[in-house]
């Protein structure tokens, strides 16, 4: 699929590729795009739940890079963080634009919907689900999170950015990322418990913990 020139240029760093892109090297731009489009696309997909939004976000993010590459300051962080930050802004804009039409939680789909009877009463909320059910359930729960928690979880847990990188992408302190990550996980577990009727012992156990 890739041309030989693109393969050779893949050994260059982001900074080198950006410099080449500045002077009109199309292969450098292609290499940058192929290197980072996946993370941008998947971030937008997990944030919005819609492939059409993810596609549009990816295009807009790289179009902005093409036109405003000078806005990226390598001393502030990686290009990956910068692109994720740009993708986040685009996602929020598109979600706001399409909010009246956005179906955050998919219904139906290729498989049967998950019912309580199919689920385990054991300690592990996802253990007895099929892999597809687990994936569907987790994605639905993530999409149902408030945006400020969703974006942190998508960046840190799904895209595996460091918390420092996530803080750069979200333009907030690392401490904020940490607290939102904890709070987001707690909300996520709550939603999953509600979805799979997690063992009541687990839910009530939260109240018995010693925070003294």
């Amino acid at each position, binding site marked *: 699929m890739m041309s030989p020139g693109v393969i050779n240029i893949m050994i260059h760093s982001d900074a080198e590729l950006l410099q080449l892109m500045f002077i009109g090297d199309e292969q450098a731009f292609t290499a940058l*795009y192929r290197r980072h489009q996946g993370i941008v696309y998947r971030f937008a997909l997990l944030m919005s739940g819609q492939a059409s939004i993810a596609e549009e976000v990816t295009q807009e993010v790289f179009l902005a890079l093409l036109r405003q590459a000078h806005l990226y300051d390598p001393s502030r962080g990686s290009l990956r963080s910068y692109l994720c930050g740009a993708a986040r802004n685009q996602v929020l804009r598109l979600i706001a634009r399409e909010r009246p039409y956005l179906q955050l939680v998919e219904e139906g789909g290729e498989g049967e919907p998950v019912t309580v009877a199919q689920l385990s009463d054991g300690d592990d909320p996802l253990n007895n689900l099929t892999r597809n059910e687990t994936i569907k359930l987790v994605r639905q729960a993530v999409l149902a999170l408030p945006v400020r928690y969703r974006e942190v979880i998508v960046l840190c847990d799904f895209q595996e950015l460091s918390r420092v990188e996530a803080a750069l992408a979200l333009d907030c302190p690392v401490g904020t990322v940490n607290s939102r990550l904890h709070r987001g996980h707690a909300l996520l577990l709550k939603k999953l418990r509600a979805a799979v009727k997690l063992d009541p012992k687990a839910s009530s156990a939260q109240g018995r913990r010693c925070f003294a």
Partner: protein
Amino acid sequence: MNCREFEKLVLDLARDQLSDAAKREQSLVHTKICEPCRTRLAEERTLLAGMRAVIAELAMEEAPARVEEALLVAFRTQSAATASPALVSMPGRRGHWSEVRWTAVAAIILLLLSVMAIFWRSGISDKSQQKDRVQSPESSDQPGPQVTPPTLAGRQDVPKKRTHRRGSRDNSAESEVVTQFFILKEGEDLTTLENLSLVRIELPGSAINEAGTAIILEPANARVKADVVLGQDGLARAIRFVASVSDRESIERRDYGNHRTN
């Protein structure tokens, strides 16, 4: 270690990313004596496993090839933009850029109508001077239209009149004459702006007539061309007017005829 301290570490503990060995050991000891925290850690690991399943599922998800193709078109267009005025557009995409483009065009049309009104009034008042220039041999060698530059209301530093011509007389069919750029926002220095775009627009004279300005263009179907400089925010920053050589020659013939009649 109490449950509050454990809670701060549980995410890293579930991922085996707790670098402090002592804290890790204390946390694991705590889970042996604290059932809620043991359950909390188990839940976190289960959640992590679910997330990893999603990551694996999406690992091969990528933007469709048409996105790369569209971006390459934009890259090539931008690379060529320095040679010819064009607004980089994305083929086949809905949304943001088309909205911006149409908003910008609407704003440009309004600005153009205003500037054209001033332009036309100035042109009428200085018409006799133009006729003299058209007749003189020196002026016939000068490229560009014999027009007076527009005077912007309330503006002291009116741009000096200067016209440019593309191509030569031999290529008159493709040649254009343009005025100097006129800054639309008082005091703005275009050299400090970045990512400017140049957009060619064309309006029928009837559009100006219908806008209710004091100008009546005859014939109404005559078209007025202009190049508009757009800022990064899509707002018009400067404008210049464009005429083809055939337009210019017809203007000269008309003016010359008027002069002879006078």
